């Protein structure tokens, strides 16, 4: 009997040893991918980033920057346009873009491992773009330690240090310089593209990636220029490799290359070079963030009167509730060739964005807002509201389309592509640099007026593909902005009001581009926005940053309170300026909104 028991024990022991060696195989997921080329990361990062930025524009930037006013009475406890912004409402950029940053970091490490210059360059552009969006939104954020855990398997660090925004911007500039160099080197070695399957935006075209990276570089230099000027006389120390740059000189160099279309820093040359990210309503991974938005929710945003005032010809009226508002003067309001528009042409972009010509005054109290919506003055004879809503009508076939100009223009809710960055932005950047006398070539009024006009023209074409540069409407409107429109000093475009004119047009051109116009406002104070309406909170300061996410306190126990105490005075407030916005000139102009 003992013999049998011994056999049995041996049998069990042998079988468990055998299966243990099988365990090594079993511990690996047979259906998973344990390795991938670096280019496999590109499209998901770009797509999710653009998805997030579109959605942030609609939920937050559109309200902060007074493109729109929220008229959704069902969420009256949280009104972003009145600066009642609790934590949690603006976590999206943090929680989405940092995850993408982790992927970009993993992609970069993989590209280094592959010794692939081109993909290192693309990864650096993505990293620079992502971290700039994050730091521009929240201020000081983790950077040096950010993304470092991705794909590690031996983790014993649970706190992630925050860096100053100045240090982050130093690195952004180095990353963009490196990217330009690396992709240039790859191109010199004959590599012109990577897999189009992995990159639905540029289809793997390295030249377009390099142009996009350098266009971001122009944006980045502009972002820090005023601050570096005030703080360090225009010189910014970088790293050991890139040493020190003069922001103005580098901007001038970029301008030169922009004009030539090539050079050391090739940038976007036309609308066609823009990064357009594809979307689709037929395939779940490509849905827009607005795919499930009902028409009721879509209509919860009304045009603000700041928008209609800047885009349409208006008369000032006071309604029965003694609220001042701006009424569209000419009619019929839809584009109609038979109407004489020579005096004050409407902005062609208005029809691509808004239906109905009346804007809502900003920062009304809740009951004033309801009374305004209900007032007889703001209804047509048929009882329909005259207040502008984002175009999302339905055409004869039941497909979404803006009403009146069916399918001719960009469809805000269900477009098939959205831009990560607009081409027109470059014109406005260089026009501003010209108006500030930073670039000798662009410093005369004539020079920056031309840049300003080109910017407006390109922006119209970006939104109205049915028009051309030589369409009468385009020409009329560009002409009106330079010679007809009166700015806050009571004059038409001149050297004194050029910055206001340029940045107001830039604000319009940044419709649906993430947080860019909010960054411009904080940096320059333009466009002039009212921040002391009857319902405005936050000490009548347009939020200078977004609150760190509420769960960061649990997720980043040591570093988070340190950061809070270092630059925010211990509270996660929305009144402290981020580093590049903290300039005398910006604060002065922003104060104009508080009378």
């Amino acid at each position: 009997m003992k013999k049998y028991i011994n056999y049995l024990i041996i049998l069990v022991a042998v079988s468990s040893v055998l299966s243990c060696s099988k365990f090594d195989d079993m511990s690996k997921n047979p259906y998973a991918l344990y390795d991938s080329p670096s280019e496999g990361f590109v499209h998901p990062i770009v797509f999710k980033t653009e998805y997030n930025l579109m959605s942030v524009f609609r939920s937050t930037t559109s309200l902060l920057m007074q493109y729109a006013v929220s008229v959704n009475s069902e969420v009256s406890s949280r009104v972003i346009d009145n600066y009642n912004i609790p934590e949690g409402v603006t976590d999206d950029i943090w929680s989405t873009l940092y995850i993408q940053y982790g992927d970009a970091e993993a992609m970069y490490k993989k590209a280094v491992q592959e010794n692939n210059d081109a993909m290192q360059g693309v990864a650096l552009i993505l990293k620079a773009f992502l971290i700039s969006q994050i730091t521009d939104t929240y201020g000081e954020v983790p950077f040096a330690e950010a993304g470092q855990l991705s794909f590690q398997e031996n983790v014993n660090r649970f706190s992630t240090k925050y860096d100053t925004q100045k240090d982050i911007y130093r690195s952004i500039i180095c990353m963009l310089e490196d990217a330009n160099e690396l992709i240039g080197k790859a191109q010199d070695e004959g590599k012109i593209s990577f897999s189009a399957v992995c990159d639905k935006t540029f289809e793997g075209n390295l030249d377009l990636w390099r142009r996009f990276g350098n266009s971001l570089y122009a944006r980045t230099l502009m972002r820090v220029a005023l601050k570096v000027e005030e703080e360090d006389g225009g010189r910014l120390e970088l790293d050991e490799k890139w040493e020190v740059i003069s922001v103005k000189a580098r901007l001038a160099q970029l301008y030169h290359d922009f004009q030539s279309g090539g050079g050391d820093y090739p940038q976007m040359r036309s609308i066609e070079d823009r990064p357009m990210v594809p979307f689709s309503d037929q395939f779940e991974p490509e849905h827009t963030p607005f795919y499930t938005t009902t028409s009721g929710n879509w209509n919860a945003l009304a045009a603000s009167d700041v928008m209609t005032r800047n885009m349409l010809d208006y008369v000032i009226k006071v309604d029965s509730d003694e609220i001042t508002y701006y009424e569209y003067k000419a009619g019929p309001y839809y584009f109609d060739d038979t109407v004489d528009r020579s005096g004050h042409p409407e902005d062609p972009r208005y029809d691509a964005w808004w239906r109905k010509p009346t804007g809502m005054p900003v920062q009304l109290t809740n009951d004033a807002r309801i009374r305004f919506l209900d007032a007889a003055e703001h209804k047509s004879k048929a009882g329909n509201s005259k207040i502008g809503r984002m175009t999302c009508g339905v055409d004869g076939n039941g497909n979404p389309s803006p009403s009146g100009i069916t399918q001719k223009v960009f469809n805000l809710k269900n477009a098939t592509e959205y831009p990560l960055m607009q081409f027109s932005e470059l014109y406005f950047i260089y026009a501003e640099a010209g108006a500030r006398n930073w670039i000798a070539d662009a410093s005369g009024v004539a020079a920056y007026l031309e840049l300003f006009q080109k910017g407006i023209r390109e922006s119209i074409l970006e939104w109205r593909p049915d028009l051309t540069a030589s369409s009468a409407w385009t020409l009329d409107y560009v002409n009106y902005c330079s010679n007809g429109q009166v700015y806050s000093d009571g004059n038409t475009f001149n050297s004194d009001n050029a910055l206001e004119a340029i940045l107001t047009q830039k604000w319009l051109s940044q419709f649906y581009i993430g947080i860019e116009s909010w960054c411009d406002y904080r940096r320059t104070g333009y466009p002039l926005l009212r921040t002391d309406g009857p319902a405005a909170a936050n000490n009548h300061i347009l939020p200078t940053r977004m609150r760190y996410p509420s769960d960061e306190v649990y997720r980043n126990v040591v570093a988070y309170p340190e950061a809070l105490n270092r630059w925010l005075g211990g509270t996660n407030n929305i009144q402290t300026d981020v580093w590049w916005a903290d300039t005398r000139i910006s604060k002065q102009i922003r104060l104009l909104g508080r009378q």
Partner: protein
Amino acid sequence: MNGDALPGVAVFTNSGVGTITDEKGAYSVVAKKGEEIQFSCLGYETVTIQAGSPSLKRVVLKDDAQILETAVVTALGIKRDEKALGYSAQKVESEKFANSGTTGNWLNGISGQVAGLNIDRGSGPGGSMRVTIRGESSADLENNTALFVVDGVPMYNTSTASDAGGEGSSFAIDYGNGAADIDPDNIENVTVLKGAAATALYGSQAANGAIIITTKSASGQDNKFTVSFKTSFAADVLLSSPDLQYEYGQGVAGRDYYYYLNSAEGEDVSGLNPRPDLSSTVSMESWGPKMDGTEYYQYYNEAKGIGGHVDEFGSFVRDATPFINRGDWFKSYFKTGLTFTNGIVLSGRLNQDNSIRVSYTNNKVEGIVPNSPSMTHFISVRSSNKLGKWLSLETSLNYKGARNDNIPTSSGYGSTSIMYSLWCYAPNIDMSWAADYWKDQATFKQDASLTGGKNNAYFVANQCINNQKRDRVYGNVSMKADIAKGLDLTVRGGIDLTSDFRTQRQATSTQAKPNGWYREQDIDSKQFSGDFLLKYTTHFAKPDIDLTANFGGSIISRSYSNHSQTASALQIPGVYSLINTSHDPLTGNNSYQRQTNSLYGMISLSWKNAVFLDVTGRNDWSSTLSANNRSFFYPSVSGSVVLNDLFEFGRANGLINLMKIRASWAQVGNDTAPYRIQNYYQGTGFPGTVAIPTSLSNQNLKPEIVSSWEVGLELKMFRNRFSFDFAFYDSVTKDLISQMPVSYANGVNYVFVNAGSIRNRGIEASIGGTIIKTRDIQWKVNANFTRNRNTVVSLGEGIDSWIVAQYSTHAYMTAYEGGSLTAMYGKGYVRAPQGSVAIDADGKMVDVSGMLVLDSENRPQTTTDLQYLGDCAPDWKGGFNTSFKWKGLTFYIGFDGQVGGHVFSYTNWVLNYRGKGTATLAGREGGLIPVGVRETGDGNYVINTQEISPANIATYYHNKYDQTNGEANFVSTQFLKLREVRLEYAFPKKLLAKTKFISQASISVYGNNLWCLTSFPGFDPEAVTMRGSAVIPGFEILQMPTTAQFGATLNLVF
């Protein structure tokens, strides 16, 4: 007892002639031949003997203590004497499951019966249940549930939920839990093994306790063949409803008119509008005008002639109709749920050595949500055969086939859920208007206008169908060989196979999937297990020691595969086929395999059958851990002393029948889920591309170890009329495997780590008594009490807190060192700091610390900082039940409840934020002055005297019950429930004997869940919400109503 003569025994014959035994135990009674004579005495089993039988000369009555010394099935199917156990094991008999109207909720049968056991329910009938024993032992809430074991083989219960139409993990379609795959009519009894010592031999899967189910077999029955038949019927009706208001209708905040404009008409439609100056005020909120009969233009439907008339030109003209309360919009959506159960059992003990039992049950259910029928079939075969002198064979095979025609996405906050839609309606709506859910059937457009654009609740139930075909086969074959005297070997093989085919539909024109959506999922799971157990028993006469040694080993191999294909837009609306997709279907593959090999042994010693000692050891090898950490060993020691067998405690007088003290110490190792030790790329939906995982793997994961000790006392007194059981336990889980949240800045959200330790410490007590016991009447009372304290002992190096679970950013379950794992955090109201003062109306200085600080429009505000809200675990739980038996009639009533406990409630939010509840009536007319203070700007406060006008009342409530304000929506779940009432009548055997073919018959009527006393504002304080693939405690996200169930059962045995 002990062969002594027993005085005072009642002796009766059938004809009613009776006597009582004298002091020597002698008696005499006159009986006819063949008549039955019954001997009964308090504390002893009643014996019936036929007149003329030789055994009448010496009738032996067994005392209850002997009867109660029954065997319990412990780990690995080892049967033990209850008194030999050094740990707590509680047995629940089959009658407790007899009331299960639906198979899914047989677990109700142990709810409130077993101290230390906690059940979290997914909301809705047939919803999943999460069973935990003695608290949350691990930071991974999905990992804390008890193991289910059927006839010695662990069940393989894979995650069962599916996300609802791609709306993420905030809520899910609840496909029920695997424990529902057991036919409650087949359960002989259930033993709950609570502590680590009890489950040490089951290893890692049972680290959180085990529920051991023994199914019925024929081997114990008389030597004959029986057929039994059961039929039952149950009806489910809504148990309770929140306090809904019926005074104000749907409408937008601040407007004093109501106007219905069909949303798809758009705002540009002119000329049709009878009140041209007004646009639609239809809203999902109920801040509309008073339903006082004022005439407004309301819902209209030309085809049905609702809301208008046909004029002389034959065209439809809308009419203003009185705005009135049209009844119970909420309840009228739900139907009475119906459950029909029929079962037949053929059971035969063919001869001394062979028996077989075959049963078939079917279960037909109509749920309370419209269009939610299901059908379930159970077949079980259990046989036992003696193959030879030394070899016997036991087999058990079970099949369950479920056909669910529609499992609605019942709860959760998202447009695909029924409750999300339902909470948009209001009492001014006649629900029959909504029940006709088509706007244009030809183009597949739903009429969603009454819900302010959200899905029509009837459309969801009838067109967004989720169905399931689930087949499960499980069973085992076990062979026992008596090798030599005292030595036997049991070898067992088990299978557990599940095949689950699910389809999910989102109809065209739904909010989430306007172009339609369809998914097919094939889910298969397989478990093969094999084990052996060698047992040696011997007796040493000299010191009177019994020794039993067990040595065994097992291999459990599991594989799971979930393949899905999704059409993300449909070419032709209403056609649900993967071919009808307008793009390549998306594919998903979530599969794994894992294996655990184990060797274990146990030595049991007993001295004088009164002192018992068990020592066990087990080593596991798990495929889920890396080679260095794969093998882990853990021991246990337990012992008990039966004092009354060692010392004289008056057993002869029936004073103390059992006095046992027990103690145990044990460790159990717990491995992790597969594939957490090496990172791999995630798919992204875009072909050819990858992303890094958001949860980081960790090569160094080692098993977490639960160490616990327990002491207990068991007492039976007064001839077993009184029983008492008490346990104190302390259990610490070390090296917790947790998915630790880290800053998003790392590019990942979570990292798997071993960190920290959690302690659960508690007491359990149960007390029972038979208050009256006579020949015809028996009255029993039982009560139990459980109290568990959870403490986070440490969280590991450099870690200050963990988020255990969260809902959006509204509420968090967060563990801090020294706190509890189930502590809840969230934002609260802005309050005046300590020491704040204000001048009141009389010019007096008053302390206003802690008062609400109102904003410039006099509304409460929400803080930006998180604060402690309370704990979701109760302070204590208890159950009480009593049964009263008179002849064949039994009446049973059971209560249970808890004290303390909270939940973050979205139902509370929706009631108040949307103006649906009575709590929002104040101030609608005439306004109200909010209690609170306002800042004056210089750091001082004034007491608010300003009014919120009726026009602003909605925004006041919006602020007061802000979604992000955890404090505003954190509510108590303290409750007392009437869990069960049951009246059963067993027909007298004499009567049945006359029928010649019916041997037993009983009929019972019962009610489950009949009444609930609670301040919880929603439907059911016990029901929480299914999220991801698990029921997560602490968060109630738009739960379904709970039902009260009324049923009747007829049992016949032939």
